[in-house]
């Protein structure tokens, strides 16, 4: 059978796998991109969340044949240098404990912030209740999502530069 071409984090990869293989295992075992985690295999825990054309999707329940031609973004592609507001906020609020679920949490949060730049508690509940964190980082997750929203918000216009020569 012909190889399947995947666009992951802006790069094309040709993979020779059973077309029914879940995207999760192709990312992890074939492409060795292990930031996307296996937690349940039945779209219950959210640890495997990636973006498909910007939409948060469970990679464990998505056959690889169905994602050809779509833009796949994984945690490795969220930013080049941990500079996404959600990543910065996760560090600022000291969210992760074991950390295994957090790639998925971050991917869902990144999508949420695009849809709802100022998410309410109800928005956060709706987006994150599809995820499980066994370490119980929920209070910090909630806080960090709000922190990330504040970080991502456009800043008020900078004051006009002073007249030439005055600035030092």
């Amino acid at each position, binding site marked *: 059978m012909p190889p399947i071409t995947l666009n992951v984090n802006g790069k094309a990869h040709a993979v020779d796998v*059973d077309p029914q293989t879940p995207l999760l295992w192709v990312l992890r075992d074939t492409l060795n991109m292990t930031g996307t985690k296996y937690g349940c295999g039945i779209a219950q825990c959210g640890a495997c969340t990636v973006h498909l054309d910007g939409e948060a999707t469970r990679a464990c329940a998505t056959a690889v044949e169905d994602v050809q031609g779509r833009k796949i973004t994984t945690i490795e592609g969220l930013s080049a240098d941990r500079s996404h507001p959600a990543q910065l906020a996760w560090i600022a609020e000291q969210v992760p404990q074991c950390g295994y679920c*957090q790639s998925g949490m971050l991917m869902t949060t990144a999508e949420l912030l695009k849809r709802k730049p100022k998410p309410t508690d109800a928005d956060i509940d709706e987006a994150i209740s599809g995820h499980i964190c066994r*370490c119980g980082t929920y209070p910090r997750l909630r806080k960090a999502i709000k922190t990330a929203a504040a970080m991502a918000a456009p800043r008020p216009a900078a004051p006009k530069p002073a007249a030439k020569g005055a600035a030092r």
Partner: protein
Amino acid sequence: MSAPKSRARRDFLKSGATGAAALVIGFRFSDDAFAQEAQEKKLINPFDAWVHIEADGRVRLVLAKSEMGQGVTTTLPMILAEELAIDWKQVRVEQAPTNPNIYDHGTGGSASVRTSWLPLRQAGAAAREMLVQAAASHWAVNANTCRAEAGAVVHGPRVKRLPYSQLVAAASKLPVPDFSKVTLLNPKEFKIVGTDIPRADIPGKVDGSGVFGMDVRVPGMLYAVVARCPVFGGKVKRFDATKAKAVRGVRHVLEIPALPEAHTAGGVAVVGDTTYAAMQGRDALTIEWDEGAHATESSATLRTQFEELLARTDGTVVRNDGDARAALQGAGQKIEATYEVPFQNHSPMEPMNATVHIRKDGAEAWLPSQGPQWGQDAIAKIAGLPGDKVVVHTTLLGGGFGRRYHADFVAEAAQISKATGAPIKVVFTREDDTQHGFYRPASLHKLSGALDAKGQPQAWLHLMSSVSIDQYWTPPDKAKPASSEVGGAANLGYAIPNLRMEYAPAKSGVPVMWWRSVEHSTNGFVTECFLDELAAAGKVDPLELRLRLLAEPRKVRVPPDNESTLDTSRLRACVELAALKAGWGKPLPKGRGRGIACHFSFDTYVAEVAEVTVSKGVVKVDRVVAAVDCGRVINPNGARAQIEGGINFGLTAALKSAITIDKGRVEQSNFDNYEMLRIDEAPVIEVHFVPSEATPTGTGEPGLPPCAAAVMNAVFAATGKRVRRLPVRTEDLA
């Protein structure tokens, strides 16, 4: 705590490039029986931690501790850096090689801070004194005119200064001071201990770069899943691998025998090029099982057995003050209640896995393990190699909660690697992880209490039966069945003159093990809810009753929980602080309630006040306020995170899930039927620490035990309904 014997050593490590010496001090965290044994046997390296100060002044702390999100790779270097007078960022933490001469490299029991606080300070102070002495000799001045600060030794009013990097070579030639004689810093001088240092492991957990056991990849590695008999103790009778072998990517199908010593079930292993191939291959197997002796066990038969055991009077007496039975007979008011809790699974987000490569001359393993030396031992036995030929790398752990102490998954990987010659990663699916665990024991409790006319408890009788952890793990002639079952109940801290507890172990085929906070998870719920029942029966406010029964400062120490001494005044202080911060006594709207509970475990005191809303048979926990006395707090933000985590872990067991048995097997399989607490169900949590200069203790487990009781006592306050079995069910609220 007794001062560790001087187990320091001096060593030289030659660096190829510079030939410069490093200052190395090896030491041990726990002053256990092993230390003596190590001395008697003259073991070469009886250490589980080393401080290396390199010729360039950089410091490495080599630790046999596993990072599972509790922050051990941040908190422990903070302690060392403080005494060594360096910035904590200069300390690089490395995983210690697993040493077969050391029985337990383990990480658990909320013990890392508790057991390492003094040895780490002593090691840091010893190294500091050696560096100071080297500088003093160089300047030909008295060492007591020199001091260490910011990674250098300084002297005199016109301040001479030598950085550690220029002193390492000379210092490394000095004798290591006796640990018991080094001068530790006055805590008033602490600059690092007690501050919120960001955790070192977090950046790698926000970009996917952190390597968990699941993420290990070694050249030539194959993936394996194992089909195990769904009934505990069952075996393979026969199997047909024809279809499995036809699955694309499947390389091997082989039977692996059960290993009684490693408590593995055995089964049929399917080995493939990818995890998915192995899983597909397993799905295509046809297996006939011999279900063995436990095929008729169920949660119902176990409950019947508990009832029968508790109806007898030959339980082991684990506490006996006064004469509880006589006091109950003559009581003015007698209260009786039965409590029960089910099995629980650890269910860390990273399912069990291990990567093992056995070669002829040695073996290598990559283990997400709380007890890597247990894995090393299992591999050595299977490979027929001496332990020191088995190199173990400890990876990040995607949660542990006790489950990752055991080495069953390591043994399976070793068996398959030995048979195939390839490096093998054994992966548990979530279903495997749920159905082939080692569970928190199920238990049944019958409690009786007597009150005098003022509502003061005069007698307390607690009869308990459970599936005993020690009976499962220890040979019958050595087992002490009560030893991991009665803690937190036998050493109840309340001043009740007649207090008796009896324990009877049940027989079961269900494997059991330590689960976050072990028996305290059960006994905190049972004892603190029953105390609430006594308060209600005596018409005393539940806070008031606790304060009364803890009023007299006493030390409670009861075998077999004899490692710990409960100080009632410290527990009382937590109760007072939690009540104050929670606004105890302030009115709440109808349908809402507030409950309190306190518990002492792992040498840490915790009181919690929960606020709940009960509506249409559903309990929503709105807020939990915790007051914690864990001695001096090393990293407050990290300690808060551990208490928050313990509370939410406990709420899953209180509100959501149970492992139940039918036909000898676990009925649940994945998160759709073994449900976890989610963000919309998680409360606001506030954590307050009782200011303390006492020796630091741990926080990983102690946050859990009071939370189910605080919640169910709040449910009673809101509804008048007593919840005596977990998890709460809608019918119990009707």
